[in-house]
């Protein structure tokens, strides 16, 4: 039986198809302004027996394709646990939200926290800040790690942080140090969320921001423990949805 999971996020859409426990298809496309058309493109030529949608566009998909849905929380919990069977905490930072999920010993969601309505501390924040400093998002993390020290950025609001960055630039501060400071500010916010659900055990980091090496290293440093990242952290939600479709 072929089971598919599709994760319609604010920035990207991922599709994972599994058969007999193995991933047989893995695709990604930008969400753009018309997620359903993008979804159709992504599904082109794919065959599956069951499909479950997740992500913020799941409601649209449910109506357009008459499919079942699960929340990102459940999908990420399931996906992360499949990659790391002892995971107890999942940190997912996507394009427009971030969440922390505590799992019980059977992998069920015990408690979760999500960021508030704005994009503070999410992928979108890092993306805008990278642009403000003239970095490509793919290299933002690696470049930031080259900084010798880390400047303190106080604003968590994307709009305020951008003005703060501008004022630091005009003060002649090093752009790498500003960049590292921006990463550190996101990490501080995430640590706050992790503390609220009293994190314990193995921590899995998923979502697009998990691809950022600076984020991974600063998090590991702050938590004094190893952060587990799946090979392709953006696929965790879709993979989890595919697994749930098969259950």
């Amino acid at each position, binding site marked *: 039986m072929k089971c598919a999971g599709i994760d319609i996020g604010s920035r990207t859409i991922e599709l994972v198809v599994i058969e007999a426990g193995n991933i047989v298809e893995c695709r990604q496309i930008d969400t753009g302004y018309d997620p359903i058309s993008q979804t159709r493109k992504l599904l082109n030529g794919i065959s599956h027996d069951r499909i479950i949608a997740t992500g*913020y566009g799941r*409601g649209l998909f449910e109506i357009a394709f008459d499919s079942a849905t*699960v*929340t*990102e*929380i*459940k999908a990420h919990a399931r996906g992360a646990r499949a990659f790391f069977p002892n995971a107890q905490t999942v940190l997912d930072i996507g394009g427009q*939200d971030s969440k922390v999920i505590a799992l019980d010993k059977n992998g*069920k*969601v*015990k*408690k*979760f926290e*999500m960021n*508030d*309505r704005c994009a503070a501390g999410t992928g979108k924040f890092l993306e805008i800040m990278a642009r403000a400093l003239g970095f490509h998002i793919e290299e933002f993390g690696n470049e930031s790690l080259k900084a010798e020290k880390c400047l303190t950025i106080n604003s968590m609001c994307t709009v305020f942080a951008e003005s703060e960055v501008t004022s630091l630039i005009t003060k002649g501060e090093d752009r790498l140090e500003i960049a590292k400071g921006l990463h550190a500010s996101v990490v501080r916010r995430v640590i706050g969320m992790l503390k609220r659900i009293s994190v314990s055990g193995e921590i899995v980091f998923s979502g697009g921001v998990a691809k950022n090496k600076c984020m991974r290293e600063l998090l590991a440093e702050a938590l004094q423990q190893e952060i587990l990242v799946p090979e392709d952290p953006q696929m965790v939600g879709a993979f989890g949805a595919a697994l749930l479709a098969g259950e």
Partner: protein
Amino acid sequence: MSEDYRSMWKDLGLDLTAHDALLAVLGKGYQDIYLSQKNRPEGMAYFDFVMSEVHGLRIKELVDEKQAGRKIIGSYCVFVPEEIVLAANATLVGLCSGADFAVEEVEKLLPRNTCALIKSSFGFKLGKVCPYLESADMVVGENTCDGKKKAYETLNALVKKLYVMDLPQVKSEQGKALLKAEYNRFKTEVEKLTGVPITVASLKQAIQTVNAKRAAIHRLSSLRKANPSPISGLDALLANQVFFYDNPARFTESVNKICDELEKRIARKQGVSPEKTPRILLSGCPMAVPNWKLPWIIETSGAVIVGEESCVGERGTRNLTDNSGNTIDDLMNAIVDHYFKVDCAIFTPNPDRFNHITEMFETYKADGVIHYSLQFCQPYLMESMPVEKALEEKNIPTLRIETDYSMEDVGQLKTRVEAFVEQLK
């Protein structure tokens, strides 16, 4: 709406264009949220009618009462005793505060970071769209939270007659003495307004009328213990909201009629949703009409609400007032005793509320608690954290929500609520 209403609204001083806009939004919201529900009890037709005439027929009744010499008193809080108002031959109505209106005007008078409920009460006044407020001969403000008590200082200049009632914040003997003194002062004020002295007989009768209304709500609440629940949380919330507007006797009769129907439904095991639907206890800030956002999100996410630990809900209606006294003083003491039990978050400490949440969770066989606070509502936001901790210590799944009346966070809230419902399944 008929032309009669338009001239009535105009006479009351409403801004007809703005009011039309409000009614259009309200009508659409009601259609989308209420009338789209499946398996509703037939008796809800009464409340559909009440809502369709909420600014029409009910206002006409109030205007007719006024013409017959009866006074209308408006209130923003459950601490304003309806018993005293009725005993002096006046009518008490809850005032509109459940939707954003004339926000730019409001923010000229109140800081942006004020809770949506307080802002809304100003918005309805400044936008001239609340016929209840405009019908009121006296508006009662009460010193509950800091936001409200400071806002009344400004509201004083906006309304015809604002009467401010002080309230205790501690459940001590001194606190109770303060409440008693304030209720006596209120009684005198109401008598002065109406020219009708309150007698033992009129007070007894008034207590009986209000108790009957509460007893009908108790009956409705009790039927929600059944699994599957015979009525949606949205519909039950509506009954609790209309409690503050409607003619008391007619309200009681209508709720009892719905209860008769629900008893038959329960006997047939007929519910609004299947038996395995996760059951939610909603706890926190009051939800005034038309603030249906969170209950609507919950009940369209595969759960059913089985109780409201709220002022628009069981916190306000939980107890009856003792009617056995034979002097004014005895009856006034009974009224003080009754309201002194209300476990509003303005009280410190407030252990009764924790106990009631747990008790309601068990009584209504809930599977989880969703704690709802309005953004910037310090008392409930502050309590939400120890409430969550205490409930989780009892292994009661809890979700804390902080929101306002805007629709911009609906997507986020839906994800949270759905994930919580998944957790309960």
